[in-house]
């Protein structure tokens, strides 16, 4: 039990650090709303190495804390809906036996879809839909990159696990 909590804590801390890095050093490519989402490495890794419950817990804590530290209530809602839609689709994709990269890429797309839905509800604006193609492609690309980065992490963590 204590081991599990400490693992979650370490992962959450890692996710917070990655979010912080991204907040301080934004990998901006000039399109608003598009970011790399480094902390998703942690979410993906947690999903593979621990399980669904842990991934949900880590994501929730990470999003709420980052929202409080760097954002405001609207940005917290965007992040929550993005993170959880992404997580749900990733869980489904994992069950469908996709690879880490595939799971992450589709997760990236749905992360952006979730944010877009939240924004559409909060701004009552249908015009946001025209933004969708950009967010779709960027979600796919960043998700792919995150999956690429997560694959060796997951492999090595499994090695450590089986080794110990």
């Amino acid at each position, binding site marked *: 039990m204590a081991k599990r909590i400490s693992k979650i804590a370490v992962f959450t801390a890692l996710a917070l650090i990655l979010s912080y890095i991204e907040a301080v050093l934004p990998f901006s490519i000039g399109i608003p709303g598009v970011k790399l989402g480094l902390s998703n490495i942690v979410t993906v890794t947690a999903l593979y190495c621990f399980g669904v419950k842990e991934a949900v817990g880590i994501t929730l804590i990470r999003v709420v804390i980052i929202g409080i530290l760097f954002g405001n209530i609207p940005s917290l809602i965007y992040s929550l809906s993005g993170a959880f839609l992404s997580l749900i689709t990733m869980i489904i994709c994992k069950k469908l036996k996709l*690879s880490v*990269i*595939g799971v992450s*890429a589709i997760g990236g797309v749905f992360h952006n879809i979730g944010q877009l839905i939240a924004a559409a509800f909060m701004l009552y604006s*249908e015009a946001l*839909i*025209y933004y969708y193609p950009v967010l*779709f492609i960027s979600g796919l690309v960043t998700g792919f990159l995150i999956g690429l980065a997560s694959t060796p992490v997951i492999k090595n963590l499994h090695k450590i696990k089986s080794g110990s």
Partner: protein
Amino acid sequence: MNKRDFVAIGAVILLSVIGFLTFTLNQKGGDFVKITVDKKTYGTYPLSKNDEINIKNDSGFNTVVIENGEVYIKDADCRDKYCVNQGKIKSGSIVCLPHKLVVEVVSDNDSIDAVVK
């Protein structure tokens, strides 16, 4: 990456394109009619959907009609009928001072802060 990945990603892309196209092709202008009575929002209605809204308050009544992408005040029991005489609008606003009623066309695909008239 395996075959399943490509199939899944392909399916997501396909669904997205279909969803996006159906949505944008069915979109008929993002304009809304916002009705305010004595500073309180009474309701918001799409300008693209014909509608008739009867508004009654302590000071009297106004009948707002949305028709073919235009909005006008069809009838009112105010003294000067100025609101009725303002005719049909597609942009800007109609104000009925005696009833403290404002009918505003709100467009969400531009970013206009104020309209001079």
